[in-house]
């Protein structure tokens, strides 16, 4: 995709962008189209963090198989994120606990944060985009 190439708005400004992923990977298109924005933002050399909270933690679970619902399986994209220098991945502790998930259930390395730690991280951002 040509949009994925290195981009520059000419300003040289680097802002902190947080992408807040709140929804399950399938059922709605938010997770898939949200990932596209994340990749483009990284191509602009911005400081990107991704947070997975609520049903958004399901975006990262191992063993996704979408054959039965006949839609594209994009879960491999999360493992390719470090190739775009997107290494700041955070998950919400309570959302994991509520769904019986641990870090071992996830396809990528993440930092697990409490609600308070998450609030502090959000407060540091310039831009928070929620999908």
């Amino acid at each position, binding site marked *: 995709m040509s*949009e994925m190439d290195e*981009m520059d*708005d000419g*300003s040289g*400004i680097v*802002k902190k*962008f947080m992408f807040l992923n709140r929804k399950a990977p399938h059922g709605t*298109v*938010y997770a898939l*189209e949200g990932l*596209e*924005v994340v990749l*483009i*933002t990284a*191509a*602009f050399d*911005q400081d990107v963090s991704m947070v997975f909270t609520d049903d958004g933690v399901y975006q990262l679970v191992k063993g996704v198989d979408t054959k039965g619902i006949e839609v594209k399986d994009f879960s491999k994209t999360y493992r390719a994120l470090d190739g775009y220098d997107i290494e700041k991945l955070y998950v919400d502790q309570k959302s994991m606990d509520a769904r019986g998930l641990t870090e071992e259930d996830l396809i990528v390395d993440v930092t697990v944060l409490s609600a308070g730690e998450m609030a502090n991280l959000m407060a540091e951002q*310039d*831009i928070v*985009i*929620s*999908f």
Partner: protein
Amino acid sequence: MQLGILINEGPYTHQASDTAFLFARTAIEKGHTVPRVFFYHDGVNNSTRLATPPQDDRNVSARWSKLAAEHGVDLVVCVAAAQRRGITDDVLAPGYRISGLGQLVEMGIQYDRLVTFGD
């Protein structure tokens, strides 16, 4: 203040585009500028000129067009999201244009605030 607006839901089913419109209009009235609105996800459906809502209802795409004409607001529709949903240059209402996600990222980088409207 320069305000960028991101709209993630289509017209009528969701209130997002209406709320964004009222926010943008009020912000401009108060002396702020809204240089660009970016339409993503089903938000791209706001851009069609083919919608003909009942006369006693608001026309969502048309009132964005009017705001754009009066205040120079750049109405940008995401190309990838538009292609998925059959939105092409042929169906765009006045003032809208189709472009890439880079236009959204630019709003975040260049403006004072980026405000999201959607679920």
